[in-house]
């Protein structure tokens, strides 16, 4: 039977060339900017996760909205970040599964990795996702979409090319740019970043990934699983400096198991080209050594993108390191202009950008007083196992003077994780000592990002950990780990005094018969 991609033909998707389809959807070369329509309720600069959310929300509320994009709709998320990296991670995970197929009683013979096909799939995924945020779709939603570089012309207007847009309110959501490490000679030797990696037709035989933060570890693992020799260089003693050390340690172990060559506490000092490839000089604890690889992947940190916006003309304060200064309501120093997403410097995640954008729209258009600091912000590093976190870490709680107790369930105690052969990881839920008030949680598990939502909900709604013990979880699931932690919290209530009372009650019952 022929598969149907509903409506695809009618909208004219070119499904034969995903590159072209994505371009057609997200940065159509023949796009004609509309004529500016008087004063806009809201002008949004940047059509990444924050900008798209803000523009769509405002348009849905009947606002007259202009959305300005300098490159491609979807921002880094769809084009170079979240989406393509998750697609390549999926391929890598499958290869890893195949490699241990025998563990599950499956003989998978003769499977070889094909990075070119994996990359082709990445582009198909991007093309698929681009359909939902295509320029034409946004136009149909009533958004005036302008392609071009925006710069403020004054406190209530900005210019796109030779057009001037006047606004009552504006939201800056220009995202971030990659931060490159300071490696002497790397510019001349050449390197790839996530911005260029996924556009390649195939991958080199060996790569050095510089930087062991979330994106660096995700990419190192995925690339290694695709059969590439990967050297991961990180200048701190553990990966994911922000995460709990047990999480980072489990990840280190998994990366080593995948075959990543790990160099912690190691700094890339300089680079040069030799007949054998790109030779990187590394330094660790006073020892210097060299490694030669085919390609270097770096630029795994991000800094806010504020260049060329002429922010000073609109009276908006910003600095290159921390981005646009916003208050807790996401307002900039120009009360008519708000900012959201990576351009504000903090919490550089797509979902935080979207949440901040929703908050900014409400505050900008409805005199709202919603505070960013009240948001419960989860995040996840999509390595295998995934590492997901929400709320405070133990040391942050200590700094705030909050005594905490952590309820830990190892994934190897969870029936479904054992059945799935996915026993690496844990659920740790921090509660304020003596109460069941959740102050934070870290989950390391195959599907930690999915599991975390339950705890985020409990934190957001302030239900307390014990309430999760009363929630019936389907059996067997991996999220039963969360219920087990909640059960432990409930059991803690059974103090010796209560236990004595309970024993007395039971003996009384026996006497009554």
């Amino acid at each position: 039977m022929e598969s149907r991609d509903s409506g695809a033909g009618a909208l004219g998707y070119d499904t034969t060339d995903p590159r072209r389809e994505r371009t057609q959807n997200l940065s159509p070369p023949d796009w004609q900017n509309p004529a500016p329509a008087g004063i806009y309720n809201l002008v949004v600069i940047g059509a990444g996760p924050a900008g798209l959310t803000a523009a769509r929300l405002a348009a849905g509320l009947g606002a007259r909205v202009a959305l300005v994009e300098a490159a491609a709709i979807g921002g880094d998320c769809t084009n170079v970040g979240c989406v393509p990296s998750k697609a390549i991670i999926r391929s890598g995970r499958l290869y890893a599964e195949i490699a241990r197929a025998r563990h599950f009683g499956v003989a998978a013979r003769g499977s070889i990795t094909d990075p070119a096909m994996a990359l082709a799939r990445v582009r198909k995924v991007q093309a698929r996702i681009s359909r939902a945020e295509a320029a034409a779709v946004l136009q149909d939603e009533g958004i005036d979409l302008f392609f071009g570089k925006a710069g403020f012309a004054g406190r209530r207007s900005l210019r796109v090319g030779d057009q001037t847009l006047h606004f009552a309110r504006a939201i800056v959501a220009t995202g971030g740019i990659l931060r490159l490490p300071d490696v002497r000679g790397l510019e001349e030797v050449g390197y790839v970043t996530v911005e260029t990696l996924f556009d390649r037709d195939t991958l080199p035989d060996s790569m050095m990934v510089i930087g062991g933060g979330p994106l660096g570890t995700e990419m190192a693992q995925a690339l290694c699983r695709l059969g590439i020799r990967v050297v991961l260089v990180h200048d701190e003693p553990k990966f994911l400096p922000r995460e709990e050390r047990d999480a980072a340690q489990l990840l280190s172990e998994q990366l080593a198991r995948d075959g990543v060559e790990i160099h912690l506490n190691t700094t890339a000092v300089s680079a040069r080209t030799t007949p054998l490839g790109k030779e990187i000089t590394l330094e660790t604890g006073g020892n210097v050594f060299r490694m030669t690889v085919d390609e270097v992947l770096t630029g795994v940190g991000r800094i806010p993108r504020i260049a060329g916006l002429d922010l000073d003309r609109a009276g908006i304060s910003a600095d290159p390191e921390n981005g646009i200064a916003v208050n807790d309501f996401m307002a900039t120093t120009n009360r008519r202009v708000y900012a959201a997403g990576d351009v504000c410097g903090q919490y550089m995640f797509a979902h935080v950008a979207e949440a901040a954008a929703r908050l900014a729209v409400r505050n900008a258009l409805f005199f709202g007083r919603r505070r960013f600091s009240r948001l419960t912000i989860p995040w996840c590093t999509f390595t295998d196992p995934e590492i997901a976190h929400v709320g405070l870490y133990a040391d942050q709680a200590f700094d705030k003077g909050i005594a905490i107790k952590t309820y830990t369930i190892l994934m190897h105690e969870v029936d479904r994780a054992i059945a799935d052969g996915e026993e690496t990881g844990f659920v740790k839920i921090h509660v304020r000592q003596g109460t069941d008030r959740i102050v934070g949680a870290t989950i390391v598990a195959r599907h930690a990002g999915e599991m975390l939502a339950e705890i985020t909900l409990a934190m957001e709604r302030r239900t307390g950990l014990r309430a999760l013990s009363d929630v019936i979880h389907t059996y067997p699931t991996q999220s039963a780990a969360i219920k087990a932690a909640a059960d432990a919290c409930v059991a803690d209530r059974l103090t010796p005094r209560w236990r004595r009372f309970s024993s007395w009650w039971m003996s009384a019952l026996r006497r009554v018969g």
Partner: protein
Amino acid sequence: MTLNDLPDEALLDKLQHAAFGWFLETVNPENGLVPDNSDDGAPVSIAVVGFALSCWPVGVARGWTGRERARALTLATLRFFAAAEQGGDETGTGHQGFFYHFLDIERGRRVWNCELSLIDTALLLAGCEVAACYFDEPTHDEAEIRMLARSLIAAVNWTWALDGGGTLSHGWHPATGFIRYGWEGYSEALILYVLAAASTSHPTPPDSYCAWRRTYQWERIYKHDVLYAGPLFIHAFSHVWLDFRGIGDAFNREKGVSYFENSCRTVQIQRDYARLNPRGFQGYDADCWGLTACDGPVGPMTTPDDLGRQFLGYNARGAPYGPDDGTLAGWAPAAALPFAPADSMAALRTMIGRYPGMMRDDRFLGSFNPSIPGSGPEGWVSPRIYGLDQGLLVLMIENHRSGMIWDLMRCSNICRRGLRQAGFKGGWLDGK
């Protein structure tokens, strides 16, 4: 007659005596230095020297060596360190009162491009303090021991080792300066902070003890409320010298558990983990455990089902988060005797009975891994004996049998002052 045929007390005596013998056999009598392990040409580890200094009094008390000889060895050690070059030279012995981790056994000079090590210096100093407390006779030699030991302890510049930060640095390299990270979170460094807090010449501020507690993890794991640290040695090292029974710092008071009780619970976590044996390694059960820092095999792990694991070499293994590659330290249950006498004894007997090849001449080799096929049931066996393991055995078995080291150190003004400065109260610390 096998070891397991001996009654408990005789078995422990034999194991302890054998471990003590290693120090007597390997010590350089000229300078008191002891090698890190049994390999030919192995360098000296200053931590092992600290253990040796602590072991000599045990040997005297048990009648395995004379007081004269113990005194001579102790004096040689202390004289060497007191006279050692302290300029931070690349081929020197120490700097700012601290010493390099590894030294050559003849001249006592830095080898292996190693770091100036804070924790290893602390273990050395703990040995010095044991010597100062034990050799209490009013003779010229024993007075010199006390004088040298106390001056070595007083000479350490702890303030410098903070490197301007909140916590004590891991160490220092002559070429590159301080190692960028500090000692924080529960670890074997408890004794380091106590000794640093005790200093009257270069003390660390009370904030620094607080800063090291910042990343403590108070967790409920396998139904045990525990201050988590994975490797077993962490829960034993400081406890060799300091008797944490009945005393507590602010953390202990807040959670209602002493560090001693915490080590007891950690033993139970090791047992529970081994019983669950999530990674399916050979031999693990409630009476066969011992995940700690120890020697181990290296390289990819070949299993019939292609799990693709790696052996970890010398590494700090731990429960329940790992790392775990199936390697166990046969000596670990003996080192845990004070915390869980019955369970440790059961494990000790089970492991000795099942894996006799993990020992050589009644001495525990570094570790073994029964998951790797070998010439016996113990599979892969570490080819060497480690001084740290032997020291831990002598001293923890002694604490289990008589509490001798604890008794000595409870009378140490330095330990008492350090503990009090760090906020410890209660029990024996409230006495005179």
